């Protein structure tokens, strides 16, 4: 294959690989493509209180599972003095134990959840047929009567469940329902409905959960029931008898026994507080991925310490600057002094801000050139002279810093971000250009470098560019592809249109 073909092949390969990786991260790992994308994160705190009797204590709390709409980002258990473990048999449960405890006790469990848009349907296994509950003869008559009247009004199991719930929620409740409520110890509508459904041979289970609303404190767990309608589970709200999950409902426990069991204590209760936060989408994406091992993330700059990450943030901008330089030299044809000097200057501008940066740079190079013009009369060897220029630059930097500090100009303090070796080299080259080609050429090359540096700075500090390069280092591959293609560009440069205009006019 011809070199040209190879270049295009690799350029396309790189660009496609970069694009695919970027798309993968954006779409599947939920990395935000735009900066400042926020996602709502709910901090839920479950507060467990009970009075201990003075003997051994065992507290057992159902824990939420990953579910369709929400995803757990983080969990924290606060349990001073208690042994703690998580049991994961069929359902997750937290277990606190202590040899001896007396008086009021408080335990905390905190978690952070975020909305998750993965619509994966839960696998449905047909449940076992329910065991009919034990009634007293009176209750039994009332229950059968309720079931009978609901049957008459319904076509299938689901509509039966709905009718039944309606009867239980009706303001003017049927006498049978009233009787059942009065008879049961725990007057929970959901519990009663599940028992009635079991009597009718329909599998049903309890869902306990909370509503995610900001600044909601001391919320009791709410109950929903889930009815198996032949091939799928359908959720009903027993209070309103409506179908479906209420908005913002976070399912804590699905099926299973009670939510909280305390052995060795009394008056136990669990209360929830909810707080909503807007957290950057990237942080959420990263937290989501912490548990899963994704190679793209494991071998990523995120795995570095924070201070190293900021260095990389800068480094990842350098290729963007290089791309700007390539465009300006290859497509525009602007002369710069030193190929990538403008990129380094642009990096310094990021620290100093643009206008102070330009002012400092021009002053530094100007004074440097003036001193260098004297040095050239002293007949020094080049390396020694260059070293002398470096020292001059350091002295100037120190001088400017101290002077500006005394004057109260903080901006000038950032002068140290200018790469002094590069500045010294620039001064040296400029001064040679001055001697050889005159001040006009110095001005021309100096302006060219400055223009490219400023444009590189503007591109590099663009919010979107900054965000994309840092969060999607894969973009480096795309840049590589573009630069390779530009390296094959044999068309005219913009400045050549002017240079050769005279040729075509004649």
């Amino acid at each position: 294959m011809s070199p040209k073909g190879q270049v295009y092949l690799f350029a396309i390969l790189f660009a496609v690989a970069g694009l695919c990786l970027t798309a993968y991260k954006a779409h599947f790992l939920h990395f935000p493509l735009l900066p400042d994308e926020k996602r709502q994160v709910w901090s839920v705190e479950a507060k467990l209180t009970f009075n201990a009797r003075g003997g051994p204590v065992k507290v057992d709390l159902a824990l939420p599972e990953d579910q369709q709409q929400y995803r757990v980002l983080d969990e924290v258990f606060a349990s001073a003095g208690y042994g703690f473990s998580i049991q994961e048999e069929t359902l997750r449960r937290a277990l606190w134990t202590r040899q001896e405890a007396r008086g009021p006790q408080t335990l905390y469990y905190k978690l952070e959840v975020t909305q998750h848009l993965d619509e994966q349907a839960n696998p449905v296994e047909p449940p076992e047929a329910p065991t009919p509950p034990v009634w007293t003869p009176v209750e039994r008559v009332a229950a059968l009567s309720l079931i009978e009247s609901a049957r008459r009004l319904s076509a299938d199991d689901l509509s039966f469940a709905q009718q039944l719930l309606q009867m239980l929620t009706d303001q003017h409740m049927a006498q049978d329902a009233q009787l059942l409520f009065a008879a049961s110890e725990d007057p929970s509508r959901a519990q009663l409905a599940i028992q009635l459904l079991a009597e009718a041979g329909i599998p049903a289970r309890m869902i306990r959960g909370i509503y995610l609303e900001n600044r909601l404190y001391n919320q009791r767990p709410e109950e929903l029931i889930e009815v198996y309608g032949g091939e799928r589970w359908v959720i009903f709200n027993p209070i309103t008898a409506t179908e479906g999950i209420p908005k913002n409902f976070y399912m804590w426990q699905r099926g299973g026994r009670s939510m909280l069991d305390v052995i060795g204590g009394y008056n136990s209760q669990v209360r929830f507080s909810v707080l909503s936060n807007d957290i950057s989408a990237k942080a959420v994406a990263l937290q989501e991925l912490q548990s899963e091992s994704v190679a793209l993330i494991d071998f990523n700059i995120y795995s570095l310490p924070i201070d190293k990450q900021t260095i990389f943030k800068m480094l990842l901008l350098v290729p963007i600057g290089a791309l700007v330089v390539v465009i300006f030299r290859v497509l525009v044809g602007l002369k710069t002094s030193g190929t990538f000097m403008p990129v380094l200057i642009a990096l310094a501008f990021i620290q100093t801000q643009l206008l102070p940066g330009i002012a400092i740079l021009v002053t530094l190079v100007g004074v440097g050139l003036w001193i260098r013009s004297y040095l050239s009369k002293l007949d020094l060897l080049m390396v020694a002279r260059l070293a002398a220029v470096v020292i001059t630059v350091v002295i100037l930097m120190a001088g400017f810093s101290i002077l500006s500090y005394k004057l109260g100009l903080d901006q000038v303090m950032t002068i140290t971000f200018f790469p002094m070796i590069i500045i010294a080299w620039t001064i040296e080259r400029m001064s040679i250009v001055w001697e050889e080609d005159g001040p006009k050429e110095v001005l021309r090359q100096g302006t060219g470098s400055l223009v490219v540096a400023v444009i590189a700075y503007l591109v590099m500090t663009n919010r979107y560019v900054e965000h994309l390069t840092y969060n999607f280092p894969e973009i480096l591959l795309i840049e590589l592809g573009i630069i390779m293609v530009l390296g094959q560009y044999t068309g005219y440069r913009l400045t050549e249109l002017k240079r050769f205009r005279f040729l075509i006019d004649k």
Partner: protein
Amino acid sequence: MFDTIAKMRKMGVLGMNARNVAYIARYNPRHLFPLVDDKLKTKEAARKYGIRVPELYGVIRYTGDLKNLGALLSPLDGFAIKPLRGSGGKGIIIISGREGENFLKPSGKVVTLPEIRRDISNILSGVYSLGGRPDTAVVESLVRGLPYLLNYSFEGLPDIRVIVFKGYPILAMMRCPTRRSDGKANLHQGAVGVGIDICDGHAIRAVRKDYLVDKHPDTGVDFSDLQIPDWDEILLLSAKCYDMTGLGYIGCDFVVDENRGPMILELNARPGLAVQIANGIGLKTRLELVEGLGNLELHPEERVALIKEKLRCRD
């Protein structure tokens, strides 16, 4: 803008990018560059091929050699000191006469031995070499330009640049220093570029910066009468440069010495594009003409004859 591009394409104007990618990268193997970048190697090779070059008086490699500079220079009337790996005429010191112990530049400026020593020290430390590597200074005989050609120049020596592609001389120009260009033969500094007809060596037109000129701005001599002496010899020498260097795309800089005739001053593996402006001819038309000939393996004489034939020169 697209109109301009289309016109430039039609004229066969070669752009910098196309020159770098399609010609220099393709026809000039990197390992052959030292032969043209290093003037000592160029001289050595030129001697083998019977191409005249300015005589070598001495080589200064290290700062320590500068002690003997006085002894080296004292018998010389005129000489040129050049950086071995320099380019574009940078760092060249030309001494055309003496004033007692001191030296005279062509402009009449007097320089002392310590001043020359300082300039050489600059050369040695690599100020003018490509990439800033430490360099060597070469002292060689001063070319005494042909008075006829000197008429077309202010102070400096006019040189003749021939672009040689695959051994065929395809375009040429004479570069005449002016007062504005400070005696330098660089067109962008204000020297006059005179397009030279490959067929017979007469002037096609003269360009300074962005406009056509008839006469030299300082000497007032009319360019339209210009006819380069020994033109056929220059063509032959330039064709030989290809065999000598193996580089497919080079610029050969000639001067015509009063006594010794045409000689090679410098070879350039990255010749500029200004020659197109001086001639009013796009380089690509000629490059493609030569590419169309295929690889014929001809002798330099045959190549010169063939290119003349292809350019429909009347003989």
